[in-house]
């Protein structure tokens, strides 16, 4: 039987798709990153339960905390974008509605991500 695929294509094992495993892989990578990052967030919120503005702003303004928070925002927003994309593709079947939902999903994730990132950056810079 003749082989139509290039040796490189066979070695990569991605079939005909260019990005066949990208979605799956990034969902796992962001999921893994989310575990320590969200545990940090929950821990930070627990110890700051009822804290006043000055205390919270000082905590979030710490550069090390800022780095962790930016990574958290990036990883969680990416993960939730990938996750809801699957939900939309599973349940919404009309092409136009699906396209609109997928675009809205991207916009929402990006808006949340940029808003969170900007807030964290401002807190760190104005510290």
């Amino acid at each position: 039987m003749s082989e139509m695929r290039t040796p490189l294509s066979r070695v990569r094992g991605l079939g005909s798709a260019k990005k066949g495993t990208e979605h799956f892989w990034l969902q796992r990578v962001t999921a893994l990153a989310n575990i320590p990052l969200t545990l940090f967030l929950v821990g930070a919120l627990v110890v700051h339960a009822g804290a006043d503005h000055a205390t919270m702003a000082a905590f979030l303004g710490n550069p090390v905390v800022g780095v962790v928070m930016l990574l958290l925002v990036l990883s969680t927003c990416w993960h939730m974008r990938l996750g809801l994309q699957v939900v939309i593709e599973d349940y919404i079947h009309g092409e136009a509605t699906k396209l609109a939902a997928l675009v809205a999903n991207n916009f929402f994730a990006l808006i949340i991500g940029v808003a969170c990132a900007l807030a964290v950056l401002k807190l760190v810079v104005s510290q």
Partner: protein
Amino acid sequence: MSDQSSSRPLSPHIQIYRWTLTMMLSILHRATGIALYAGSALLAWWLMATASGPEAYALVRDISGSWIGRLVLFGYSWALFHHMFGGVRHFIWDTGRGFDLKHVELIARSTAIAPLLLTGLAWVLGYMYLGTWS
């Protein structure tokens, strides 16, 4: 619905089957994922308010400290832990392990119980720290 005649047989849907823990966890994993997606707006609100100043922050603090705010945050924290453990379950499956019935059930039970314990722990600690700030 579909254009096909209603006399045609349909494959049974979820209400036909006996509910199992694994089935419930699968549905809950997706449901908590969607809830956390919506809840990310609260995270953005909290961060934006803190960055905006004391007045905006005070509003977040008052609302999140109210009984309804605490109820939402309690659900939020449980959803987060539940989705996290559901993810770990998927990681175990990704390695090709834990598919036999005995382990499926064991992992399912752990996935259902551990988030409840961690949520409880987080809130007990939270109330302890609450006393130190106020």
